[in-house]
């Protein structure tokens, strides 16, 4: 398969900025040209101005706070469940076979479809929201954990065993750190899922507090489109910030993964993997359970010192 040449880092920045400006311009033009009624589709500048104005609105910010709180609780809970469960399923084949059927039955259930049921059981408050987020977020983290464990290098395990370490030590000292980049990728995928679930649950349940509630109520008001869109801008911005922070964290924590090594050798910075366009690749990652692939051997033993001035004085 032939590949187009990748643009350089600074070119990428400019291209990204250009894309944003272009999209903004088109929205602005359509809004102003009177193609549709202005109250249906306000120009982009008005929407953005409203979004900025909302930052000073205490009630709105409380709502955003509530959504973020549900997001964080749900995501945290799912990690607390999925990582130990994944370690268990990934390292004890017997448990894996026993639980696999249940997991495969539950996994394809779209969590959004569960909103009415869970609302009935738990009410419309934060409990429902957190429960649904947790449910949806468990899967990417769980499968990435199991997949990462399977990718642990047998030689690394043998090395530790040869020094006389037991099964538990191998799990904690080799398998867990080796799997960590996969777990982190799973968490990053789940973080977006959690935000979707948080807003969706609020939208559907319809009252209480939250970004979704704000959007739902704005949708009912006359000429509310501007507020709806401003709310959407906020949701998008939240997603962007969360993803950016997590990508940055992964880079800081796991500099040894083959992806980082190749980037370092090619002298590329942190922009690319953080680009929002990575969405499709991430969907693939959820499907195959693969996050970043630290197990694959892109940084083979032949690769001598990896860029960044590794001249050690001997």
């Amino acid at each position, binding site marked *: 398969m032939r590949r187009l040449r990748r643009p350089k880092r600074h070119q990428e920045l400019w291209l990204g900025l250009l894309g944003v400006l272009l999209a903004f311009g088109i929205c602005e033009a359509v809004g102003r040209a009177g193609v549709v009624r202005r109250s249906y589709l306000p120009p982009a500048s008005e929407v953005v101005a409203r979004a900025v104005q909302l930052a000073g609105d205490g009630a709105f910010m409380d709502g955003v706070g509530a959504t973020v709180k549900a997001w964080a609780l749900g995501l945290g809970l799912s990690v607390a469940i999925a990582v130990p469960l994944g370690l268990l399923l990934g390292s004890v084949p017997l448990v894996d076979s026993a639980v696999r059927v249940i997991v495969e039955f539950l996994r394809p259930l779209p969590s959004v479809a569960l909103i009415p049921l869970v609302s009935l059981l738990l009410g419309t408050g934060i409990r429902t929201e957190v429960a649904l987020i947790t449910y949806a977020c468990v899967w990417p983290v769980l499968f990435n954990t199991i997949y990462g464990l399977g990718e642990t*290098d047998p*030689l*690394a395990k*043998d*090395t*530790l*065993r*040869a*020094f*006389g*370490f037991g099964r538990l030590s191998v799990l904690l*000292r*080799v398998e867990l*750190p*080796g799997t*960590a980049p996969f777990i982190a990728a799973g968490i990053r995928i789940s973080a977006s899922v959690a935000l979707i679930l948080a807003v969706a649950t609020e939208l559907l349940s319809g009252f209480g507090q939250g970004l979704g509630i704000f959007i739902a109520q704005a949708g009912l008001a006359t000429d509310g489109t501007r507020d709806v869109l401003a709310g959407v801008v906020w949701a998008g911005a939240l997603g962007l910030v969360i993803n950016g922070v997590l990508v940055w964290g992964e880079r800081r924590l*796991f*500099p*040894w993964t083959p992806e980082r*090594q190749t980037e370092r050798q090619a002298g590329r910075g942190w922009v690319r993997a953080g680009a929002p366009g990575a969405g499709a690749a991430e969907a693939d990652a959820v499907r195959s359970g693969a996050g970043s692939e630290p197990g694959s*051997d892109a*940084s*083979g*033993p*032949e*690769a*001598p*010192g*990896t860029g*960044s001035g*590794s001249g*050690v*004085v*001997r």
Partner: protein
Amino acid sequence: MTLRLDSLGQRYGEQVVLHDIDLTVPDGQLLCVVGPSGCGKSTLLRTVAGLQPAYEGSVSIDGTPVTGVPDQLAVVFQDYGRSLFPWLTVRDNVALPLRRRGLPRAERREQAERILERVGLEGAGRRHPWQLSGGMQQRVAIARALVCRPSLLLMDEPFGSLDAQTREDLEDLLLEVHRSDGATIVFVTHDIDESVYVGDRVVVLSPGPASHPVLDLPVTLPTKRDQITTRGLPEFVALRAQVGRAVRGPVASD
């Protein structure tokens, strides 16, 4: 420590990998095991290391049968890129085996630094393995193997993926370590020259399946070896030819 293999056999499923191997490695000997690729050299090492139970026959150390990973054992694998832990610094990689000794952290680090200095890596302790060249990484792996002062050191083609210059440097490092520490060493390689240069004794395994020793040769070279002079000695050339013939098998020898 004395290592003894008694009619050792190993198989994967139906396939016989090693067959009827009898071998005694006296205390302090550096034994090189040579054989063509895929003849089961690594399987032999894994069995001796207790990573894989023997299918038939037995392995014993100082008369005690090996059932699990023996104490006082260290292993160096060929693939340093996979056997060093990238999330640990060089120093912590080297200090890792000391954790089982229950030494305090400061003591572990100090010993690690000392052994790093010995393999020529002073000052590299705070770096990570992936920031070093291949030869340096293998030095780290050797330092990690030496840090517990093992009495049995197993090396599985440790210099196989290094360039010629680095390989020669590390061969000399190994000889120096062997002279001063006196551990029993089993060194697996497919490089005939290397086996003769490094070894006190060379054992050649037949091609698989059902690999077994076809030549057991004491290396009658002076203990003090040098890359240029030793390799030029007539004895060296003769020994190398002998090992070479055994590796190539009866067909190619004439």
